[in-house]
């Protein structure tokens, strides 16, 4: 069978995207994720669930987000026309809320009263805390100690929203440890707790569910570009942490063979230094956090800490569907160093009057090369998946400025 003829049918019944994905969890969690899958299938079929989502997307989140022609950036590079999909204009400032809204509505349907989440940059934590405040649910956010320190404004925002923050000191105190701790909490509080995972990773059905909720990005973008330009783009680009904003943009274009899908991983200090977060470009397949995917790991199968200037990309794995798309050759994965991202952050701010988050700055850093490659007749969409307000302090520090 040519797997490529069935792009849209993944994952299979076992939660697999080819050789990736699956349900690698402790037995205590198995009944829970099987139950979650059933409930998600039922919700997906229910028009009332979709209607509630659509209403909140429109009036609470602010969807659809605009598709904006980045004219000066286009001129600057002198290649393909560059459009931004402006998910940074969403309520709470990033794409993360698309997914949180879906999961929390599902949790409510399931009668769960306590929501837990992991967060790195704090964007997923803020989005989860926001939706929990909106619905009066308890919210507990696990965050690595290191990240609590470097993302102080978001920590305060979450507390204002009524969430309890649990700083995680186990392991190395970053996103992967926060995820371990959230899983440990879930194993402990199986009765009343819903685990709201922030990226398109984790055990099945999370990668599928998060992709479906984030696919609103690509669905809107596809319709918007057809209306504006009368044709599909030549490429769509997004940064990759766990891969949720990227898969949300990619998925509605997956069967449009002429559209290149381009992800950009965080190369940190450079892939050759070993200090990076590029699981596809610098890792190999393994098993972590419930799924089989590409991971940063030693020869002995121990997980290596990721490094990126962007806390949202600082994760040693990647969602299993990206691992699949890459091995099948349907998507391409580039990378970008901390320094290149910092430069792109400043360039975009100056030329477009849009302060991007450090995460999409990674995609912006590669957009010039792709635009030139496509040439003046080309057309591409870049996902502006978050705004940079949360990053101004760390950027100032990196630039040696005292604020």
């Amino acid at each position, binding site marked *: 069978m040519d797997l490529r003829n069935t792009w849209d049918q993944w994952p299979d019944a076992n939660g697999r995207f080819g050789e990736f994905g699956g349900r*690698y*969890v402790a037995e*205590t969690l198995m009944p829970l994720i099987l139950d979650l899958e059933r409930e998600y299938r039922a919700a997906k079929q229910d028009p009332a669930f979709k209607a509630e989502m659509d209403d909140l997307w429109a009036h609470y989140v602010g969807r659809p987000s605009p598709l904006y022609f980045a004219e000066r950036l286009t001129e600057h590079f002198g290649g393909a026309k560059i459009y931004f999909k402006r998910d940074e204009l969403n309520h709470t400032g990033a794409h993360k809320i698309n997914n949180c809204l879906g999961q929390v509505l599902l949790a409510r349907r399931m009668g769960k009263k306590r929501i837990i989440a992991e967060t790195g940059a704090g964007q997923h934590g803020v989005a989860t805390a926001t939706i929990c405040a909106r619905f009066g649910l308890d919210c507990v956010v696990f965050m690595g100690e290191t990240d609590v320190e470097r993302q102080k404004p978001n920590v305060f925002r979450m507390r204002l929203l009524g969430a309890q923050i649990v700083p995680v000191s186990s392991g190395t105190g970053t996103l992967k*440890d926060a995820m371990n701790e959230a899983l*440990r909490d879930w*194993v402990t*509080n199986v009765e009343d707790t819903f685990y709201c995972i922030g990226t398109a990773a984790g055990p099945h059905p999370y990668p599928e569910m998060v992709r479906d909720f984030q696919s609103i990005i690509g669905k809107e973008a596809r319709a918007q570009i057809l209306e504006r330009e009368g044709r599909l783009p030549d490429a769509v680009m997004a940064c990759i942490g766990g891969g949720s904003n990227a898969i949300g943009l990619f998925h509605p274009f997956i069967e449009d063979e002429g559209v290149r899908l381009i992800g950009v991983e965080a190369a940190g200090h450079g892939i050759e230094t070993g200090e990076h977060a590029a699981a596809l470009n610098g890792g190999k397949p393994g098993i972590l956090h419930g799924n089989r995917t590409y991971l940063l790991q030693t020869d*002995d*199968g121990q997980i290596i800490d990721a490094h990126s200037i962007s806390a949202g990309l600082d994760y040693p794995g990647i969602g299993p569907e990206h691992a699949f798309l890459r091995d099948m050759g349907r998507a391409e994965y580039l990378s970008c160093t901390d320094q290149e991202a910092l430069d792109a952050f400043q360039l975009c701010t100056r030329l477009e009057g849009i302060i991007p988050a450090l995460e999409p700055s990674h995609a912006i850093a590669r957009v010039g090369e792709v635009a030139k490659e496509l040439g003046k007749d080309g057309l591409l969409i870049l996902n502006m998946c978050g705004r940079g307000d949360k990053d101004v302090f760390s950027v100032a520090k990196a630039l040696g400025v005292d604020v």
Partner: protein
Amino acid sequence: MGRERIEAAFARAKGESRAALVTYLMAGDPSLEESFKALCALRDNGADIIELGAPFTDPMADGPAIQRAGLRALANGTKLTDVLALAARFRKDDQTTPLILMGYANPIHSMGYEAFAKAAAEVGIDGTIIVDLPPEEDAGLREIYRPLGLSVIRLATPTTDEARAAKVADGASGFIYFVAVTGVTGAGSADPAAIAGKVAMVRRVSGLPVCVGFGVKNGAQAAEMAKIADGVVVGSAFVEKAQDAHETGKFETAAPAMGELAGELRRALAGVAKG
């Protein structure tokens, strides 16, 4: 040997009308040398079955005690191949005590299922408990294990209903490890009365001995659990002895302290007559 060695251990305990004592230690904590001595001390003081922990950076089902033990072992440079070598060293002079390797999937996946299984059988490991390989994900490994005689030991928990217990039992051998609490290792202790029904159900559905663990720390708790189970598993309490040895810098105290605890547990189990 594999599965037969495990079955023989349960038969011996049953012959003495008592529950089996299953003990856990983390290989390489406080050092590989001390782990070898600890294996011997556990055996000499009455452990019927020994679970040999293989360290992993991200043990998602473990509490602080075993997390830290794993990180200490990794800091010592302990690799999966070292854990296998430790088993081989123990097996040289001990043909009876079953050794179960317990850990997480990734180091084993990284070595390759086939290479790992062959090496494990060769060094005298009898079965494995791989925490993040539920029945849905261990089919490949099970195929490889079968001709080698290795046991796949699975977990059942308070969230396991009868249908799930059948799934857990399918393809499992040796025993079923019943996790007494919903939670991580080293967490609070379970009330035997609350889980007795579930344990009996799992035994009936699986036809295998059921060992209960998580939260059992001393002889008194072990004796209570022994009333409802075929075996009692004690882990974090042993790991804490290794931690003490690490913290005081007196590594040589780990094995005697672990042996002493094993003795206490075994005496407690001997006091609970099983039919």
